């Protein structure tokens, strides 16, 4: 019956198309992108932790590497992902049970502003210590 317009794979990629879309769409895409990034990080982190089985000889040199500015910078990226995903997730949870629906756009802007402040604060903390 149905004639295909785009392949299913192409259609499934429509979620990432933010051209001309509203703020809520941006929030959704941001949450999905940070979510994917965080899942990838989770498994990298778990794999890296296996180095502990190599004892101090394997672990301690690794710790020295992770103290470098590059890794600290990556940490800030990670923290940004958490803050954006977490705060936006809070908005999704609240609106998702019908609370604050009318204010959803304001909530997004407010939470992202909070996230921005949090990112700056964390960045300072990370690079100071």
């Amino acid at each position, binding site marked *: 019956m149905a004639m295909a317009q785009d392949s*299913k*794979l192409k*259609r*499934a990629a429509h*979620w990432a198309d933010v051209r001309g879309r509203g703020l809520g769409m941006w929030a959704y895409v941001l949450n*999905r992108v940070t*979510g*994917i990034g*965080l*899942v990838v990080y*989770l*498994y990298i982190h*778990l794999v890296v*932790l*296996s180095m*502990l*089985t190599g*004892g*101090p000889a394997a*672990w*301690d040199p690794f*710790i020295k590497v*992770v*103290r470098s500015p590059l890794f600290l910078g990556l940490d800030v990226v990670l923290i940004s992902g*958490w803050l954006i995903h*977490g705060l936006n*997730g*809070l908005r*999704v*949870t609240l609106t*998702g*049970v019908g609370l604050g629906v009318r204010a959803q756009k304001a909530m997004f802007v407010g939470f992202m502003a909070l996230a921005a402040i949090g990112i700056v604060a964390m960045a300072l*903390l*990370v690079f100071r*210590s």
Partner: protein
Amino acid sequence: MATQADRITAPAPSWGWFLQAITGLALVVLLAVHMVAQHFVAAHGLRDYAEVVAYLRNPLVTAIELLFLVTVTTHALLGVRAIVFDFGLSDPAEKRVTWALWGVGVLTVGYGVWLTWTIIR
């Protein structure tokens, strides 16, 4: 047709959403605790091998870290499930994906438990 196993792993269509929301809220706290305990209590924010072992030998720490692992793995894999489901799978395929992800989750937590045990014994 929902089998008994399905009723445990997927009790109602809304289970995924609610579990995601609950683990998400729990993670706000657990992540903060994990971050503080791992990186702001330790000197220089990172522990060398000896410090890691000492840290993990505290039963309260092990309990909280395990809780954190279970919660974050659940939340992460539910997220993956949501993304995969958006590809328009058939009903049987969706069931298989749910089962597979349960498997990945159990393996992930199992790995965490094994790793912790290997380090602290």
